[in-house]
């Protein structure tokens, strides 16, 4: 069952267009929302939830129009925009005391459990928390009102590898019951390799692909060859990097099967993104 359906979402800014963005998030899954900085990930999330007014399209949560039922839908959605960086001089207790008044389903027992699990001291001020702890506090708030869908914008950016790994484990644990889903935006692709079931890739405000993680990777191949083979395969390469001994690049799987003489290997998500973003920069990459 689809918990979130985004259809033809459109938002025009001076110099940037979010161009008919469409994707679905399945229940009980983690959807990785990837793209380089400035590709439109945060804009998509903000427009979806009416933080920015959309110029067109629709967003459905459990079949309901999010914009027409904003209050009700937001009760079921936990939004984490990076670390918790609000009211930095206030104690966590004071912030929670205010926040829980907005949610009839606030689960105080769960919140206390999460505090212990994340080693958060409620008597501390936000400014006294490390970046990782602020992310965990934001997650604790989002989880304690029993949100069915967590929308996380760059939650692991700026965290050390141990904290990131810890958070990814938490994300996996959250969706284990099959009732929760996570839309997880990031440009740290290695995080998604570990936990994402589905991938939506956005580039320059437009969705490149939205599919399950395995199909995403299966659609591409990493290839490498000698320098004199480059001209022959240049047109079928999505992106490539030339070096002293030849070149390495990315091809669609069907093109790679027909590419005789090249070494072919499975593509990882990071390489897919890197070479796809190089698409418009063949010449500079080749120099």
């Amino acid at each position, binding site marked *: 069952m689809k918990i979130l359906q985004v259809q033809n979402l459109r938002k025009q800014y001076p110099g940037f267009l979010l161009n008919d963005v469409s994707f679905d998030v399945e229940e009980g899954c983690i959807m990785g929302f990837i793209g380089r900085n400035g590709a439109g990930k945060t804009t998509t999330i*903000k427009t979806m*939830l*009416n*933080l*920015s*007014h959309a110029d067109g399209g629709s967003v459905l949560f459990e079949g309901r129009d999010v914009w027409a039922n*904003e*209050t*009700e*839908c*937001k*009760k079921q959605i936990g*939004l984490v*925009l990076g670390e918790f*960086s*609000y*009211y*930095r*001089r*206030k104690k966590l207790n*004071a*912030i929670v*005391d*205010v*926040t829980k*008044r*907005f*949610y009839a389903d606030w689960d105080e027992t769960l919140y206390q459990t999460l505090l212990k699990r994340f080693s958060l001291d409620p008597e501390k001020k936000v400014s006294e928390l490390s970046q990782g702890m602020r992310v965990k506090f934001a997650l604790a708030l989002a989880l304690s009102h029993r949100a069915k869908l967590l929308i996380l914008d760059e939650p692991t950016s700026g965290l050390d590898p141990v904290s990131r790994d810890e958070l990814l484990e938490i994300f996996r644990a959250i969706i284990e019951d099959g009732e929760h889903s996570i839309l997880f935006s990031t440009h740290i692709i290695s995080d998604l390799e570990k936990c994402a079931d589905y991938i939506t890739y956005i580039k320059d405000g437009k969705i490149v692909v939205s599919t399950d993680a395995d199909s995403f990777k299966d659609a591409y191949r990493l290839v490498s060859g000698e320098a004199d083979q480059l001209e022959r395969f240049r047109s079928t390469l999505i992106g490539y990097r030339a070096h002293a001994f030849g070149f390495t690049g990315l091809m669609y799987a069907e093109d790679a099967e027909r590419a005789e003489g090249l070494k072919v290997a499975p593509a990882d998500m990071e390489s897919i993104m890197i070479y796809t973003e190089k698409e418009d920069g063949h010449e500079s990459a080749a120099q």
Partner: protein
Amino acid sequence: MKALLSKEFKLCVHPALFIYLALILMLLIPNYPYLVSCFFVCNGIFFCFQQARENGDAMYTAMLPVSKAQAVKARCLFVVIIEMIDVVLMAAMCAFALVAMPETNGGGTDHSLSLIAFALVLFAIFNIIYLPSFYKTGYKAGTAFLKSAIGIWIWIILSDGMMIASNAVMESSVDIAFFRYLHENVDCMPKTAEALTVQAILFGAGLLLYVVCTLLAAKISVKRYEKVSVA
């Protein structure tokens, strides 16, 4: 709305607001333009808007299960509550002054119902300028306050200036009927039936203007904030 108001009072109030509210004690200063105390309250409200902005309140609120319209309305209601607290304190100070400070105020409007009416007009001016101006961007609190301060000071100079002029005329040998009327019925403690009636009418008009301007300010603010991208 209750939860949003709780957020305003627990997370957004700047401590200076209480100091500015305490400046209602300025009504005990002899010969002083008492409406200035209301300007300080507006200043305190501006501080709260600034504090909220600096603490990322707009983004935090946007993540809560409330619409932009509800968030704006709650902030407007917060402003109204602060202003009404000041009006009530002013009424109490005026009642106290009836007994303790019988002298005429040479610095502006006397302790009277007129003073409260003028305060309501001052707050109406603040609300109709400040709120829509702030919510046009959702962050330009200083520009909005500067615009509203111009309106407020024009009103203070106009209203208190008239009362100072009426006092000056009464103390001189010149007799101008308009200023005599002001002095006997508007700029005085409402001790006669006529003065009480005139001041009650002024108070009613001030209250009406306050309600109309504040409702209009809230309506425009909601409309403007809908177009703002929360960042």
